[in-house]
């Protein structure tokens, strides 16, 4: 979700100026369990090696504006780097559109060779039985994943099988106006690091005439839960077996919702929806000085910096801080968001092998460095972070580094890797509806959490039963 909005962020960019401030904390790493799936379909890389002539590959993606241009540049580089595979990009505008068109393709036969799908579609993608797990090709190519950041890689790994490669990965960060912080008597170099601090700062901002803009993103609860190392759905967030119910009706969730409820009900934060004409109001409000702080995905940064840097809004000095976690005393992690890249099983083996060649290219060290520099997504490889491209970016624009550190640091376990849920989009809507009912109807946090869990569970079991697995 967060990236759906992102991919269209051009506008909001106008109002944000440039990134500053970075935070780096301790590095915690833990290795993911080794892949161990027995009956994978095969990925015939030999077919490509033995093939004479150029294999045409179509890649459906959802990248627009600056992000789209960067992807085009990387693809162009790929096409001219070798003479076996030629990739044509097909832009589908947004993640939702891509998914919808892919679903239509399952019945009308118009399917791509490779496709970029949003984080929340992982289980649904698996359920379509139309993808060749990249694991197959990884095994065939003896491809090493040790260079990847652990959480993004594991996000697209289910039951030990890597279904997609992490390609465009982002995380929510705090965007704030340093001038507004100063005016409110806050330290402009100390954005809030915890939820409780965020509430305090929002109150101070409000008292000094600005306040906070809060977009009603549907992943609030899960992100704060991950930061508290707490599961969202059962079966280890759906990673050890299919998720069948929500498991978040607990004190942590109630506390998170309670604080958000307080934040909005007190008027310290003003909300706007994450779709429709008001979807960027939190960012627009930052530009006009209405808000002193907001939470937004890091993927906005590239578009923003490229478009802005003009300095039209002189009263705004933009700062970027890490996502304010649930509590400084609980060790958790920020779950990655964004999209993974998949290979279709519905196309000939030759196309599959060619698609793999391309996907492994756009996820290699230099491509990911170029990608990060051009977009604001984080590089998914540690080696990319060491490249001159990225080092230079981080030195000049430290804001870019914030999300990378968020994803690289923290605990790596199922609670911080994000959930795998069949009807993920609908579940998020259930949770968001409950969250918003607190703001607009004054529903209590405890009631909202239990409603959210009840509805989410209902949604999941409805999906599973229609699939014939519940």
């Amino acid at each position: 979700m967060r990236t759906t909005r992102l991919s269209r962020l051009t506008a909001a960019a106008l109002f944000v100026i440039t990134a500053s401030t970075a935070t780096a904390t301790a590095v915690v790493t833990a290795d993911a369990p080794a892949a161990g799936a027995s009956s994978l379909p095969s990925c015939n890389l030999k077919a490509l090696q033995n093939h004479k002539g150029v294999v045409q590959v179509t890649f459906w993606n959802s990248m627009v504006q600056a992000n789209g241009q960067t992807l085009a540049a990387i693809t162009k580089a790929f096409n001219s780097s070798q003479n076996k595979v030629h990739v044509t990009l097909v832009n589908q505008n947004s993640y939702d559109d891509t998914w919808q068109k892919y679903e239509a393709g399952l019945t009308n036969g118009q399917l791509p060779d490779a496709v970029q799908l949003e984080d929340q579609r992982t289980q649904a993608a698996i359920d379509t039985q139309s993808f060749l797990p990249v694991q197959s090709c990884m095994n065939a190519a003896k491809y090493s994943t040790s260079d990847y950041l652990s959480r993004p890689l594991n996000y697209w790994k289910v039951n030990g099988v890597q279904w997609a490669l992490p390609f465009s990965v982002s995380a929510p960060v705090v965007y704030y106006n340093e001038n507004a912080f100063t005016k409110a008597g806050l330290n402009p170099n100390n954005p809030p690091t915890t939820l409780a601090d965020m509430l305090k700062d929002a109150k101070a901002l409000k008292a000094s005439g600005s306040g906070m803009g809060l977009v009603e993103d549907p992943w609030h609860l899960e992100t704060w839960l991950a930061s508290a190392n707490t599961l969202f759905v059962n079966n280890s967030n759906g990673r050890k077996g299919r998720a069948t119910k929500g498991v978040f009706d607990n004190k942590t969730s109630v506390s998170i919702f309670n604080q958000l409820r307080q934040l909005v009900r007190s008027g310290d934060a003003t909300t706007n929806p994450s779709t429709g004409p008001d979807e960027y109001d939190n960012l627009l409000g930052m530009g006009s000085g209405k808000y002193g702080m907001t939470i937004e995905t890091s993927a906005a940064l590239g578009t923003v910096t490229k478009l802005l840097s003009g300095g039209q809004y002189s009263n705004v000095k933009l700062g970027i801080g890490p996502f304010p976690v649930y509590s400084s005393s609980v060790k958790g992690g920020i779950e990655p968001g964004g999209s993974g890249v998949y290979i279709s099983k519905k196309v000939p083996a030759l196309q599959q092998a060619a698609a793999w060649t391309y996907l492994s290219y756009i996820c290699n060290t230099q491509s990911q460095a170029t990608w990060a520099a051009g977009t604001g997504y984080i590089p998914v490889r540690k080696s990319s972070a060491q490249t001159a491209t990225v080092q230079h970016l981080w030195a000049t624009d430290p804001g870019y580094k914030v999300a990378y550190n968020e994803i690289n640091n923290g605990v790596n376990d199922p609670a911080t890797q994000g959930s795998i849920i069949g009807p993920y989009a609908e579940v998020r809507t259930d949770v968001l509806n409950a969250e918003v009912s607190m703001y607009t109807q004054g529903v209590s946090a405890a009631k909202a959490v239990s409603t959210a869990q009840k509805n989410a569970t209902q949604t999941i079991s409805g999906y599973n039963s229609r699939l014939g697995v519940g």
Partner: protein
Amino acid sequence: MAAETASARHRRLRTLGSYAFLTAAAIVILFPIYVTIVNSLLRPDQLVEQPPPLVPTSPQWHNYVAAWTTGSMSTYMATSAIMTFAIVAGQLVTSILAAYAFAFLRFPLKRTLFVVCLATLMIPLEVTFITNLDTVTSLHWFNTYEGLAVPFLATGFGIFLLRQAFLQIPRDLQEAAQLDGYGHLRFMTRVAVPLARPSLAALGVFSFLAAWNQYLWPLVATGGQTPLNTVQIGLKALLGQQVSQIPISLAGAVIAFVPLLILLLIFQKQLVRSLTAGAVK
């Protein structure tokens, strides 16, 4: 004498009052359109200015260029034009043929078939689109012009309207034509169709409006995808993609609205006629 002047003054006052009311109503109705035009000519930063500018002081005509080119309005307009043209032409042809049969020919099941044609009016698209989507997909028409237009090439309303028009043609004329050796096809093209021109115009305008402004079907039948976005679906994309560039999406809205405004100016009478065909017998 004095009484007359008083009543004249009274009448003048009443007229003045009428104008005042009419003008006020006109302003309220046009206001959204006016604001849209003004805002479409502003710089993005002027949009948030307080008080909002009520005239574009430095009109940004390039907003329209941007909507037309980078905003893809040119493509959307072309798609809409082709789709609309196909639908209007198709509806005219199928309606003329069927209405002629109902008006001039005798054949078994005539009444039943006419009721069948009218019955289609009771089955709205909202009921049929679920299956039509499958049909269009299995014909490999998903996201094609065929998929956009073919389901709408016949209309019960058109058949009804033209049949009424054909029935107005005097029987004598038909008999005279028959004596002159006119066959049915010749009578249809040389006599019936020219005489039914007003109704054909009414149907054409109505079909144009309905086709151009369609929303649900083009959305589902193309998945809202390029390259076959119609203007209406394109506007949604424009709005979603360029929120910071609100003026450009407003320029897009103006561009989408203009052809219809022209249509209204030229064909107001026909349009009113078709829209009220059911109200006044």
